[in-house]
């Protein structure tokens, strides 16, 4: 069970290439953190994983299936991608209905159990009859994560899942990351939030100008200062201070 990209390039119709010659893989139970400047193509990369976008060249293989030939409905059973802006995906009149939509349409056997588990992991169970737009923005973000978890897919890909989360939701998010690891789900997360996510990541991928400039061990990435600088990125202030203060 894995995700594999082989020499993948992508350009929007009539546009310049956004992503060039990407090759990497992600396994179940692993956590791949994708970092890069705003507009570098991180969200585009996630849309290539569930077949919303098809590569211009190269292959995206999800559990052995080529996204170029499989319908997105089939791929959705294997990988669920959340969008950066919750408003792009939330549509149901209640929180429970929103979370149920995935597993019901994927014809999972244990819909009730999947939904209960996802709502409880995201600590939304007490609010399940509320309208999603009555939630504060941070909880709406958790709702998109709950929908992904409930889909039952073996791979989950989150686009900036911690953006705008306060300490309350960050703690919830950390707990659910540990739970998903236990369930052996594979995670692919696009984020700027190294302080929260780096401790959980197993592998890091840095995108710069459409190319992969680092793909390797998460523990070693903070040592790659030159690569990080060249990618137009900066380490969080506490990381930078830690180094200075250590002197």
């Amino acid at each position, binding site marked *: 069970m894995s995700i594999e990209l082989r020499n993948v390039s992508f350009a929007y119709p009539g546009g310049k290439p956004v992503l060039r010659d990407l090759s990497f893989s992600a396994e179940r139970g692993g956590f791949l953190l994708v970092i*890069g*400047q*705003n*507009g570098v193509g*991180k*969200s585009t990369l996630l849309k290539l994983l569930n077949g919303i976008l098809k590569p211009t060249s190269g292959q995206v293989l999800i559990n052995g299936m080529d996204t170029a030939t499989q319908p997105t409905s089939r791929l959705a059973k294997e990988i669920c991608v959340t969008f*950066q*802006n919750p*408003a792009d995906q939330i549509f149901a009149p209640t929180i429970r209905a929103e979370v149920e939509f995935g597993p019901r349409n994927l014809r999972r056997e244990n819909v009730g159990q999947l939904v209960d588990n996802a709502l409880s992991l995201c600590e939304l169970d007490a609010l399940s009859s509320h309208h999603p737009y009555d939630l*504060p*923005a*941070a*909880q709406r973000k958790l709702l998109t994560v709950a929908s992904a978890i409930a889909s039952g897919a073996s791979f989950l890909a989150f*686009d*900036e899942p911690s*953006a*705008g*989360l*306060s*300490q*309350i*939701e*960050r703690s919830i998010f950390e707990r659910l990351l540990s739970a998903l690891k236990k369930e052996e789900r594979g995670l692919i997360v696009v984020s*700027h939030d190294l*302080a*929260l996510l780096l401790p959980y990541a197993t592998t890091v991928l840095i995108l710069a100008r459409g190319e992969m400039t680092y793909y390797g061990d998460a523990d070693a990435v903070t040592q790659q200062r030159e690569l990080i600088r060249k990618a*137009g*990125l*900066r*380490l*969080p*202030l*506490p*990381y930078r*201070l*830690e180094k*200075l*203060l250590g002197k």
Partner: protein
Amino acid sequence: MADRINIQAFSLQYSAATPRVLSSLILEIPRGTCCAILGPTGAGKSSLLHCLAGTMRRHHPESLSSGSIQIGDRLFDGLPPRVLFPAVGLALQDPHVQISGVRDTVFGEVLFTLENTSQVPEDPSAVIVPLLRKLGIDHLADRKPTTLSGGETQRVALATILVARPPVLLLDEPTTAMDLAAQERLRGILRGMKQTTTIILTDTQLDFALGICDQIVVLEQGKVLFDGSPGKFLRRMEEFRALIPLESWLPMKQNILRLVEKPTRFGSRLAATLGIR
């Protein structure tokens, strides 16, 4: 010219049937300074900004308020009755809502603000292009504003407010989608604006606020838990660890405080970086 903000015993309810979201707030933000309002989801951060921007009454006409809000020499008994833009500019938490989408280019979208506020200069490019450059989005000037990435959208949304040069600038979690380099740019822009602008920003985290804010306010459930300088906040940060992510700061706290109190060049550089005097 920047305006002083003075909030006295201000309370807000969205309706008579709902609890207070802001409760007997007392806050003073001196003119030309930057105040960061930190706190968890539901603390009332966005509600407070909407009250100051004059947008609360429009969105929630049934809301009830008491106390007063003073912005410069305008004193409001309860909520300001109308939207105060361009005297007060509010960058919304969701930047996608801020983009009108009625213009085909980022340049046009920013120009749209100047048209709406009757501020169109003879040569709009001379105003808009340098602003886009400062925000690091000049390469997007001809792009369609609704096709941008999250972090790019957030910066375009900011440009539509900054271009009007409001003397009071309210930023509701302005960096949630920005990479750290973009955050640094914004930090530089805000530092440069402080002479002429009073800035209030909200955030769920500490990092962005340090180095630009002169005052930190911690809100929880509509009440002020803390109001003081960044230095005072650092000294007392343990108290707020359940509300604000401080795990990476706490182990460094003693070291930081020791160093900034030393009269060395490193100590004063560190103090300046963190905005501790």
